């Protein structure tokens, strides 16, 4: 059953390169994402991935088309939709002078909920940082904390915008494990990424976007067989990342 439905979404902006002209950053995107699936949106920079996500999250107005999450229209009831989605943003900035526990309590209060901040931090391996400030965290810790913030309302759908960008291989693998665990608990996850390996390993289905349109959508296996059926002649059992991981280990360094 589709938990997210989007029909012909359009987002229009003024074209910065030509005076008075407009262009569609998202140009007729339709999606149907099933409950419990990990759905990936791939595409080069400026393809419209984040804008599509932000329209689904109720952060940006939908100029044309319609979208619903759990059968609730996002344009008509954005605040209702926000109650059962969790969002991890590309930027991970928080109020200064507030500890991670305090920030989690704040975000819980914004959903009228009370949470045990330590158990949320435990989910993302940050219990020892409960009394640290967010600006003292490393990149990987910030991303994990960002996911903890997105979990305060126990969401049905989790949006992750380039969750592993800038992370070292250990932090990246740890985040993948976390995403898989959340998905195993029944959470529907939509993520954008530039990392093909991430998309291939994590996603049940993938939509590839370019110039605001979806140019391909299927399972990773089907996409490969349709668009890159030729195997490379020199087949190796792993890649450089696997070598690096084998040599340096899987343990988190931060």
């Amino acid at each position, binding site marked *: 059953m589709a938990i997210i439905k989007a029909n012909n979404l359009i987002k229009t902006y003024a074209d910065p390169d030509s005076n008075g002209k407009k262009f569609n950053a998202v140009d007729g995107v339709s999606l149907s994402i099933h409950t419990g699936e990990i759905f990936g949106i791939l595409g080069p920079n400026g393809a419209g991935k984040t804008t599509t996500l*932000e329209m689904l*999250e*109720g*952060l*940006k*107005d939908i100029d044309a088309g319609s979208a619903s999450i759990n059968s609730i229209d996002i344009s008509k009831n954005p*605040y*209702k939709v*926000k*109650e059962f*989605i969790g*969002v991890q*943003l590309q*930027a*991970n*900035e*928080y*109020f*200064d*002078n*507030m500890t991670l526990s*305090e920030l989690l309590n*704040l*975000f819980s*209060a*914004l*959903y*009228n909920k009370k949470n045990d901040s330590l158990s949320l931090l435990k989910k993302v391996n940050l219990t020892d940082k409960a009394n640290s400030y967010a600006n003292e965290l490393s990149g990987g810790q910030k991303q994990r904390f960002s996911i903890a*913030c997105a979990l305060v*309302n126990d969401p049905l759908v989790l949006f992750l915008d380039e969750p592993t960008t800038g992370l070292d291989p250990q932090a990246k693998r740890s985040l993948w494990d976390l995403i898989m665990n959340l998905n195993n608990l029944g959470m529907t996850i939509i993520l954008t990424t530039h990392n093909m390996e991430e998309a291939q390993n994590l996603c049940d289905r993938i939509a590839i976007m370019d110039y605001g349109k979806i140019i391909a959508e299927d399972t990773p296996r089907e996409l490969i067989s349709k668009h890159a059926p030729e195997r490379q002649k020199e087949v190796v059992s792993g890649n450089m990342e696997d070598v690096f991981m084998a040599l340096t280990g899987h343990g988190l360094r931060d």
Partner: protein
Amino acid sequence: MLTQKQLYLTKVFIQIFLRNKQYIIFSLILPMVILGIVAFNEGDEDPIDIGIVDKSNTILSQQFISRLSENNLFNIIIKNENSLKDDLISGKLKAGLVIPNGMTAKSRAADIKLLVDRSDIQFIQTIQPILNNSLLEIERELTKAEPLFILSLEDIKSRSLSYINFLLPGIMAFMLMNLSIAGSGFNVVEFRRRGILKRLFVTPIKPIDFVTSIVLARMAIVIAQLTIIFSFALFVLDVEVVGSLLTFYFMIMTGILMFLTLGFSIGSLAKSQESVGVLASIFIYPQLALSGVFFPVESLPEFIHPIAALLPLSILVESMRLVANEGLTFFELYSNFIGMVLWIMIGTFISTKLFIWKEVAG
């Protein structure tokens, strides 16, 4: 009715502010120091050093010098002409008098030269009448002439107001403006730039929740800071306030609301942290000069008065001053209150029109 979300966010904004101890200390120290200096300087003023060259060296010239020496405003230093000029040029002395040769009771009017920097208009305006008066008194003594007119001052309100009474409401209003603008305009731009607004708005809070919380938090913070300054003035500097504290604080609260909405407008107009600084300077500095914070508006050129009277800070300063020093009631100040309400409406209109909450993500 306030929601739990709004109250929690208000608590968080206050908590964040209280943890910024450096900001709190600096924002309190400056007004306290200014008020303290003014209060402790309100006794006898330091005498002005005046160098005198007595080319005449007659009984009359000696009499003139001794009469000037009796005046507490002056500290007379006898010099020769060259050293007087050197001291004036180097700035060691601000004024010098040269008594010409042959100053006697029988001679014609002696042309006593006052050597000053002509650009120092305020100083000349102060010193010239006093010197003229001293000369007139000596002349009357010699000619045995009685003065025809005497001008004496009588305070119709039978109370003693000094500069500190004038300054206190001005400093408080100026501090209120700065703290409110920083709390709304600067915060909004900074939160937007860092993506904190976006993070807040992925949760189900509405812009009204955010604005209400900022307004409540800032209201509490500014009132607390002003109360510290006010208490310092009342209990340490012994400043007297004749009006109702309730009216005084009502005007303060209206003023905070006025500058918060105007601050939100500045934050909505500005696209970056740099431009919010420039816009805030354009908003703050002309008001500092024209709103009678440190000097009465009446000392400004006549044509500026109508413009100055419309400025939000002028309206607030005048209201606070009239309550504190003249004891005016709210009903006597209703036109000022309406003026502030109009500014609140202008600020609200601009900020709601220009700040597109949905697009904070962008």
